[in-house]
């Protein structure tokens, strides 16, 4: 990669579905490799649409450049070389083992610099499971996993393609505290390997703890962005969510956001 860390440039992005534009002329400061960016905002603010437009899953116009590559100019299969997406839920009806699901993620479309041989795919999929600490789930059916295991298996399917941009849609929804910590810890470590990670989170305190950079959306537009301490102020939260909050710094330095009532 040439000059400095890889960046994701998002400018003038419009995205949405048939007859219903959700994001309007959206521009943000470049996102950097190695950092976790968290998208927050009220329901229907456009968080999921922004995430999906990064992954090329919803129709969008505007400019998306990842480290010198024009993502908008790529076909879906080419884009899947650079960007991975982790949906909220993993279907439970499929009769596949965790390892098979990860191999199929790898072999579903050709990947740059990867031959796709049977043995090569198996080893790479196993390495992804090992990386996330779920190697012992390799031969378990994905329908029989617990919530936390399912999120990690789902994350493994996204990570195995070695994406430079990893997008996660509420990776900790429906997880207990221990598994929330575990998944976010893993996500942080994945960013530390030089990836750009963008995640939608609903829990602001969780976002404050793990985010390097926060993007606050409201009605399809940018409401605020910056480090958690700058993005989470009572003023911004009142404006966006319509609630009265206290943002307090704990003794350990983390932010705690308490909602006192409707504003």
């Amino acid at each position, binding site marked *: 990669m040439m000059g400095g860390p890889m960046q994701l440039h998002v400018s003038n992005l419009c995205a949405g579905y*048939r007859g219903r534009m959700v994001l309007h002329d959206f521009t943000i400061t470049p996102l950097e490799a190695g950092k976790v960016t968290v998208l927050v905002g009220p329901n229907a603010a456009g968080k999921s649409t922004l995430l*999906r437009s990064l*992954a*090329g*899953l919803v129709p969008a116009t505007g400019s998306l450049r990842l480290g010198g590559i024009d993502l908008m100019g790529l076909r*879906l*299969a*080419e*884009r*899947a*070389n650079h*960007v*991975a*997406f982790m*949906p909220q*839920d*993993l*279907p439970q*009806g*499929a*009769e*596949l*083992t965790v*390892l*098979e*699901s990860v191999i*199929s*993620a790898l*072999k*579903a*479309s*050709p990947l740059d610099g990867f031959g796709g041989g049977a043995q090569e795919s*198996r*080893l790479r999929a*196993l*390495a992804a*499971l*090992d*990386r996330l*600490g*779920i*190697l*012992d*789930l*390799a*031969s378990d059916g*994905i329908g029989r996993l*617990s919530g*936390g*295991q399912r999120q*990690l298996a789902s994350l493994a*399917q*996204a990570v195995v*393609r070695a994406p430079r941009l990893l997008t996660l849609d509420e990776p900790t929804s429906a997880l207990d505290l*221990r*598994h929330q910590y*575990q998944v976010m*810890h*893993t996500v942080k*470590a994945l960013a530390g390997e030089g990836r750009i990670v963008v995640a939608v989170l609903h829990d602001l305190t969780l976002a404050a703890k793990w985010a390097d950079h926060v993007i606050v959306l409201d009605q399809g537009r940018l409401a605020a962005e910056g480090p958690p301490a700058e993005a989470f102020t009572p003023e911004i939260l009142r404006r966006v969510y319509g609630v009265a909050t206290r943002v307090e710094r704990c003794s350990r330095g983390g932010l705690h956001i308490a909602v006192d009532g409707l504003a």
Partner: protein
Amino acid sequence: MTTSRSAPGSVRPSISPSAALATYERLVRWRAAVLVALCLLLLGAVLLDVSSGSSAIGMRDVLHALLWPAASERSTVVIVWEVRLVPAIMAVMVGAALALAGAEMQTILNNPLASPFTLGVSSAASLGAALAMILGVGVPFIPASWLITGNAFLFALLSVALLQSLTRLRGAGVESLVLFGIALVFTFNALVALVQFVATADALQQLVFWGMGSLSRATWGTIAILAVVIAVTFPLAMRAAWQLTSLRLGEERARSFGVDVKWLRFTALVRISLLTATAVAFVGTIGFIGLIGPHIARLLIGEDHRFFLPASALSGALVMSLADMASKTLIPGVIIPIGIVTSLVGLPIFFALIVRKLGHA
């Protein structure tokens, strides 16, 4: 992060990548073995099928007539090769075609209740056949002996084309595809009923028998045509095996892996319509096989489509072969239409597998 930490909620000791790889390789070998076993079972079923019938010809004479026709008794050779082998082979072909179509259908619609007939393909074929039989309406330039078959085939293909164009109008969601399909089923069935209403008693009887499905219309020629259709569609389906497998993880996820899901669904529907239309045109409506074949395969070896697709085809062929045998032996001297028997033979197998599965869970 360390790699020795065990997974959340897990009480098992962590394992090494090489051990996990060995486990997976065992699983792959097991599946290959299941496929071989299904092939052998199918071979046995076909031999039993050819050995059963109204004239008493034992298994040994049948084998002799099959392997050394020149050195066998003339009448035996004729009965085995012309009377029994043709429907027996057709049973295998039709079973494989419908089950393969069903397997792809269940995956692209993400619906375990889907079968080739869910979207109205067989209803359309029935309408085509009904128009030919009762009103004599048919495709021009087709010889009279092929009128019913040609019409059934054409209508089946048209129904899929109609479905494709309807879904293209309104975004190609799975739900709208299924809804349009169900609407087509009712429409075609109503039209068939309308044609039946104006039919003469003779023509009506002919139509009802056609609808029950029968292998007695099969010839080496129709077998060859169906074989060509399978030979073309099966490798194409196998080429899409990984994409189909990844589709089981959800449409959006498959797209994020770079799979063009719309195109995958379209090409699968073309394959499904060819397989179903050809099979239905030659032997009439044979339900259940397209539903049960994939389910047997799924229960036996899961949904890695490299194994799931061939296992579905083999399971469908096996059930169909057993059904053909049952159709000749349930009532001595009478060949019951195969469409009736498939459900009766398939159900016990289906229940046995489900009960076994529940026992494991």
